[in-house]
């Protein structure tokens, strides 16, 4: 069994079929891109994987276990983290507090130990301090030192995207779902995003499942690509195959 697999995933909303019998496998350490025009079902696939939607049919396997139907927080605890296309940060909280939310599942303090946090030696204070130390390198890696203590709601768009990625990394995931990392960015910023993804994979060995609207970026980064159109898989394979695949070209350029 592969590291991560989606088998016959189908998602219907009333009469609309957002995903139609989608299957793919991802090996450990891979960057796997899902591409497709707007409305092709990419984000729906992510929402199924992270437990926000219950798939109508099909199964999702992570490390050999079926995970479809589990609640989002269970899936997070298994080691799957994600970012959102329309940034879902805790906007009134600071950068560091957003990252600390990513540490939630690795921490244990409850109401009593939290209330009784009096002084450095108490358990909740020790846990806080340790986990803040632990995410410091992520803050440095993603160049967030300057905004560490600022509420994220007031940060520029690109920085917010980095905070969201940092928060996902703070979860120490085995599988990272990245939804449109280059949305709303110019060519320079896109190149930076690509570089960052490669770096994360190389340095952390995290498996990345990437949704990207920008085809060149998605294909350039990926070890393997799946192309969707209107919820249906139209092509799957190595980046070079996808780049020249007639169905993919047709989906993006139209029937003309």
């Amino acid at each position, binding site marked *: 069994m592969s590291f991560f697999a989606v088998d016959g995933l189908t998602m219907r909303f009333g009469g609309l079929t957002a995903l139609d019998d989608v299957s793919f496998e991802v090996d450990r350490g891979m960057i796997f891109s899902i591409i497709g025009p707007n409305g092709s079902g990419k984000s729906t696939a992510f929402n199924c994987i*992270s*437990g*926000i939607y219950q798939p109508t049919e099909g199964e999702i396997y992570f490390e050999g276990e079926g995970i479809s139907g589990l*609640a*989002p*927080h269970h*899936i*997070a*605890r298994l080691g799957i*983290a*994600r970012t*959102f296309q329309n940034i*879902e*940060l*805790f*906007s*009134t*909280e600071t950068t*560091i*507090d957003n990252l*600390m*939310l*990513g540490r*939630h*599942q690795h*921490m*244990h*303090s*409850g*109401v009593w*130990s*939290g*209330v*009784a*946090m*009096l002084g*450095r030696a108490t358990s*909740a*204070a020790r*846990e*806080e*301090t340790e986990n*803040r*130390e632990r995410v*410091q*390198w992520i803050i*440095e*890696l993603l160049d967030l030192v300057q905004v560490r203590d600022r509420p994220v709601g007031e940060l520029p768009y690109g920085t917010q995207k980095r905070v969201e990625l940092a*928060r996902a*990394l703070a*979860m*120490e*995931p*085995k599988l990272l779902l990245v939804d449109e990392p280059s949305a709303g960015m110019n060519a320079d910023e896109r190149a930076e995003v690509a570089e960052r993804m490669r770096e994360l994979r190389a*340095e*952390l*060995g*995290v498996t990345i499942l990437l949704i990207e609207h920008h085809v060149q970026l998605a294909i350039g980064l990926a070890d393997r690509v799946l192309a969707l159109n209107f919820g249906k898989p139209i092509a799957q394979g190595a980046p070079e195959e996808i780049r020249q695949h007639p169905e993919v070209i047709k989906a993006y350029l139209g029937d003309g």
Partner: protein
Amino acid sequence: MNDRHIDVVIEPTRDHYEDIQLFTARGSWIKLALLLVVLVSLPLLLPGYRVFTLNYMAVFVIVGLGMNVLVGYTGQVSLGHAGFLAIGAYTMVLLMTRLAVPFPIALVMAGFVSAFFGFLLGLPALRLAGPYLAIATLGFGLAVTQIIGHSALFGGHMGLVVPDAMVGPFPLSGDVSKYYVIVGITFVLALGVRNLSVTRVGRAFRAIRDSEIAAATMGVDVAYYKTLSFAVSAALTGVAGGLLALMTGFISPGVFTFTLSLMFLAMVVFGGLSSITGAVLGSIVMGYLNLEMDAFQELPVLGPALEGFSARFMSTVGLPNFGWVVTGMLIVFTILLEPRGLYGLWIRALDTMKRSKSADTELSRSGSGAD
């Protein structure tokens, strides 16, 4: 993900405990000492009947802390907190009268029993949001007073007399001795809520408020933390109920009205949501107004003028109604002026002071407070 950390020069070395430490700035210990001196000496300086008012305000502050946890942090609305106040008050009094449980233990039990009901109310709240949740909690608050009012065990509409309380060998007879107990507990609870807010559970509460979906995908069990928030909030309000019974010496269903629940919601919004300082400030002001609404009458010149105005245009009974008008206007104007309420105004004032100060000296060490 590997445990391999990337080599980046960390400079200067940061003390991460500083983030959550209560007193970081050098001056804050002095401020704390000052606050304690004021709190200890207040009842000795004020006339006796004012101490009763202080006690009442302190009870409101505890409720404000509880409302802040639920409304400010977790973003859930409640129009039924007078119900929890009643549950706390009656639990304590019944334990003391029927089972001869000592006051301190009965007070703690009041918190636990109220928390249990908070948990129960939290369950339907999982499926409700916004106006629906408001109505459900409203129904809860009304039901509690109805049940109490029609049960002989709870003394019905006649109410219950609160027995004399002892703390160990010391009787709590006068308002002043009750003051030290009530204000002491308020201080400790405020500290506890502050600590809760900067640690894991408080963060999970606020995450739910900001984005339920994101919180869930970070591993936060949203259902668990929502009900937990209701329970914590109810526990605080239950303790406040016990202390209210202690200070007034008499409880009846007529005390725990829907208007009081509304007051509780208004005071945290007015004080500034999601801020402990704001909740405390808002509760103090609202507690005072709730008890001393007709105190306008005592103001020189303005008092008689207002009374005349009120009697002529607004009511036949003179000032009490006008008190509500003033309270309402105070809330509306504060929120219009500053959505973060009193706390926001306070922060603005501090900023202005800081700016004029740092213009003189280059030294601008920011001393972050409790929030």
